[in-house]
């Protein structure tokens, strides 16, 4: 493909073996199975799904923070190309500089015993990116200013900050090593709506200024819709649909995506549309249903869905879906 792909997963699976034996076999949690995604350079890639769908595991695998059981993840910027499965030693250290993670809970992610300056400077010191204290300070100040933290803030400890400010500190820490790729895992889920918009705007402006590629993980489709240019929908360890954001909303093809969209409560009190109800809850990833994994909750499931795994196929340009009947249901 001619597009500039920064990081791509091909047929990726992440399995976690459990303790104990069941019928002589070790049960395995299939957190991700057969994932194919490509993230373009400078894009804001959204990953959406319910809790337990494996979105965080996929995000961590992209950072080589979860074991890759099968398939490959290839990272390639203009300087280096890494195959994450076999990455180790100095190359892995180098990859750590190029990729960063912003956590969900800004209250738990910051050490209460370090000043904000030390928190933001730590990656620089650990990775040996700066040679003198003056250089470190200059870099910290520059990044802090970008995240709208002033010099006064740098001297304080995290407890003195509100949720939105703490999340800005986490963002500054992720940016300080100058990464090309950032995974933002539910980074606004713990914030109030009024603050959430502020953090989303900050992430967007950082992305536009510096061209950093984001993998934005969220359970909230309306947040994803607003920030991301490309969306992948995950269900029980598999990607069921992926498309550019506007296409995903206008030409929704997978019944699960449709259900997610219709479950978002409308702001209009006169909107009488009834949420397309999904029965039951997400099944266990230890024992996923055969055939299409969504068949136990799908309102359109037929015999074929229970036996045959749907193929990952292209509906139109850059719009992929895994459903036997997406043409009929469209």
């Amino acid at each position, binding site marked *: 493909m001619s597009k500039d792909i920064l990081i791509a997963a091909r047929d990726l699976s992440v399995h976690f073996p459990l303790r104990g034996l069941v019928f002589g076999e070790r049960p395995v949690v299939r957190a991700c199975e057969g994932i194919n995604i490509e993230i373009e350079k400078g894009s804001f890639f959204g990953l959406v799904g319910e809790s337990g769908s494996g979105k965080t595991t996929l995000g961590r695998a992209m950072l080589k923070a979860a074991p890759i059981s099968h398939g490959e993840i290839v990272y390639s910027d203009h300087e280096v190309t890494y195959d994450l499965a076999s990455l180790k030693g100095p190359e892995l250290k180098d990859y750590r500089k190029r990729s960063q993670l912003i956590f969900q809970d800004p209250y738990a992610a910051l050490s209460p015993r370090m000043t904000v300056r030390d928190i933001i400077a730590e990656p620089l010191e650990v990775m040996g990116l700066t040679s003198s204290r003056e250089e470190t300070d200059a870099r910290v100040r520059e990044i802090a200013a970008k995240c709208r933290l002033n010099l006064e803030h740098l001297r304080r400890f995290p407890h003195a900050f509100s949720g939105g400010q703490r999340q800005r500190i986490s963002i500054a820490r992720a940016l300080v090593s100058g990464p090309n790729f950032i995974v933002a895992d539910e980074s606004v889920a713990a914030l109030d*709506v009024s603050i959430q918009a502020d953090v989303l705007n900050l992430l967007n402006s950082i992305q536009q200024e510096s061209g950093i590629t984001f993998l934005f993980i969220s359970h909230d489709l309306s947040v994803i819709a607003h920030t991301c240019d490309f969306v992948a929908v995950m269900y029980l360890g598999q990607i069921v649909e992926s498309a550019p954001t506007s296409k995903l909303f206008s030409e929704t093809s997978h019944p699960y995506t449709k259900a997610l969209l219709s479950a*978002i409560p409308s*702001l209009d009190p006169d909107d009488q549309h009834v949420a397309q109800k999904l029965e039951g809850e997400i099944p266990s990833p230890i024992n996923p249903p055969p055939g299409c994994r969504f068949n136990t909750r799908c309102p359109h499931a037929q015999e074929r869905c229970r036996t045959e795994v749907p193929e990952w196929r292209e509906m139109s340009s850059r719009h992929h879906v895994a459903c036997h009947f997406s043409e009929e249901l469209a």
Partner: protein
Amino acid sequence: MTSPLISVKNLTLRFRTDEGLVTAVNDVSFDIAPGEVLGLVGESGSGKSVTAKALMMLNAENSVYDDNSQITLRLDDEEIDVLSLKRPRDQMVIRGGAISMIFQEPMASFAPAISIGDQMIEQLLIHSDMTPAQAKEVSIEMLERVGIPEPAHRFKQYAFEFSGGMRQRAMIAMALSTKPRLLIADEPTTALDVTIQAQVIELMKDLVDEFHMSILFITHDLGVIAQTADRVAVMYLGNLVETGTVRQVINTPAHPYTRGLLNSLPKLDDLDAPLTPVPGDIPSPLDRPSGCVFHTRCVETGGIAEKCRTQIPGYTTDSSNHQVACHLATQEDQS
């Protein structure tokens, strides 16, 4: 109009702390009619939960109610002055009797070492004169009513064996089995996934119709409010800034804070609309701003900023009972 089920008048609540008295709720008044769903909206720290807990006298020992505060609960034949109930024995009528509460985190609300069934029976035995056998029967019926499969089997299980959505259903079943007149739902869907949230909201709507009870629905999600509530009250830093019907508040918000909240929400029908955050953070309740509590973050003060800093805005009410506490609204009235 029928008389309201519960009336809250001038509720002011402070907490004694090491740093002095902290005002959590300031002069809040509202009514809930029988069968009505009142949505209470606001950011974290705005005093929503403290207000709700005051209705059941559930706030911690260090809470101080102001002398003017009054909460009146009207049952069929009597009026109960809630704040005068001092002994736990007297409080039984509001705690689990006429009022039940559902909490945000269903895992934390069940005792982990007692089966779900035993917990349901326990409260029925306290609040009614059923025999244990009858209580068990009623409990299993309620579990079935909220859509838990195999209720008789589930009845014997423990909270950890339930999934998140199922725990919240069990919580609802438990709260409703004593047939309360008022249900307080404190962020009941916040910890749930959207698909499960849709199930729980639908269930709650059905149950309101069926049991004809009132609900005080606390949430920070205006979308959930739009779909469930009849009337909405918006809180900011312990003050009620706007109340009205759900259509009034969402379609024609009168307070700058309500407008700010609505503008900061991502909208699905217009993906390119910019998100406008409410600038700044909610101030510390230890250090409440003078005048209008919202003036530090308000972007609409315009020419009357001085007035906002010094004078506390009173409530303006229009003909259809849409109340707002803002100097801008008073000005419009005069002009």
